[in-house]
């Protein structure tokens, strides 16, 4: 029974959402159930945060490699959470200050750092070793040129319209509208077929891994 009832819960919750599209009278029930979902997700996030705390606590306890840094992580977590919960999150609060001067610079610099690595990765990965690598490289270069003003700055006013296909701008638009749209659409369709079949398997009780081991 410890598995069957949760399975029924999953089935009922999912079917309500699907049936709502065909049975309008279910709408208010569905809306109620969706609002419950938001609360459950909030608890799921708390569970995630607790797990993070737990893993880092264990790292400190066992004195694993880099354990002193885990103390910093734990201190940061409590500082931010306590400041936010007790003194509010609006403009001008301690929380807002911590966000602006601690979290904001770190978050954006972490990803800005990747600018350097993207350059060295392009240097390393973009070698015309084979047909596929060459296609990748040429497309990347055209898009990079087509995206910035400098790419078309050399094109004079009198450039004939019949030669427009030689400009990075034009080539970039064709790559994006045809090749990129085709490739991304295939990914979209392929991935959505996966999601649809997994959803169906969950609702029908074929996929039960979410219930964990017996």
């Amino acid at each position, binding site marked *: 029974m410890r598995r069957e009832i949760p399975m029924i819960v999953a089935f009922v919750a999912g079917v309500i959402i699907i049936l709502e599209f065909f049975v309008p009278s279910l709408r208010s029930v569905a809306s109620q159930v969706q609002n419950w979902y938001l609360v459950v997700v909030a608890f799921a996030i708390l569970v995630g*945060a607790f797990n*993070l705390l*737990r*893993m880092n606590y264990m790292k400190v306890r066992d004195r694993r490699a880099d354990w002193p840094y885990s103390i910093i992580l734990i201190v940061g977590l409590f500082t931010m959470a306590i400041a936010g919960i007790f003194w509010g999150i609006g403009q001008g609060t301690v929380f807002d200050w911590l966000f602006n001067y601690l979290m904001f610079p770190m978050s954006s610099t972490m990803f800005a750092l990747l600018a350097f*690595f993207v350059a060295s990765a392009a240097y390393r990965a*973009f070698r015309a070793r084979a047909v596929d690598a060459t296609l990748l490289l040429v497309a990347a270069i055209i898009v990079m040129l087509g995206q910035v003003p400098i790419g078309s700055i050399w094109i004079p006013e009198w450039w004939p319209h019949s030669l427009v296909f030689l400009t990075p701008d034009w080539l970039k638009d064709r790559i994006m509208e045809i090749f990129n749209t085709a490739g991304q659409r295939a990914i979209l369709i392929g991935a959505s077929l996966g999601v649809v079949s997994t959803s169906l398997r969950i609702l029908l009780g074929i996929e039960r891994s979410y219930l964990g081991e017996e």
Partner: protein
Amino acid sequence: MPRLFEATSEPEYGELSPERRDELIGKISRAIVERNLTAPAIFFLESTKPLSFIGSQVMVFFDPLVRSIFNLRGYNDVRLALEERENVDRLLVAIERYDAEWRAEMKEEKKRRKRKGS
């Protein structure tokens, strides 16, 4: 409070043995190369290397959630592998090595098939 941290049904912190690590790296690199995804994979791994630790912590955060939806045996191992930045380098090297081998093998096979044909 410490009791609460320990008395859980979640797996212990865990450790990744070098053998398991190499097995994982081999598996991933073969999957990438055989699907012709060498170039994009190298670019992606090389360009996001500094974020491997953050990636591992995001995995810790979502661990209870992800593992309650999907039965991913490798999840914990990948997480542990990501905590050590050198493992990204190890994977990159493995991909490049296997890619060279695989290409040579493909060439060989093509030649053999041609000879058979003629």
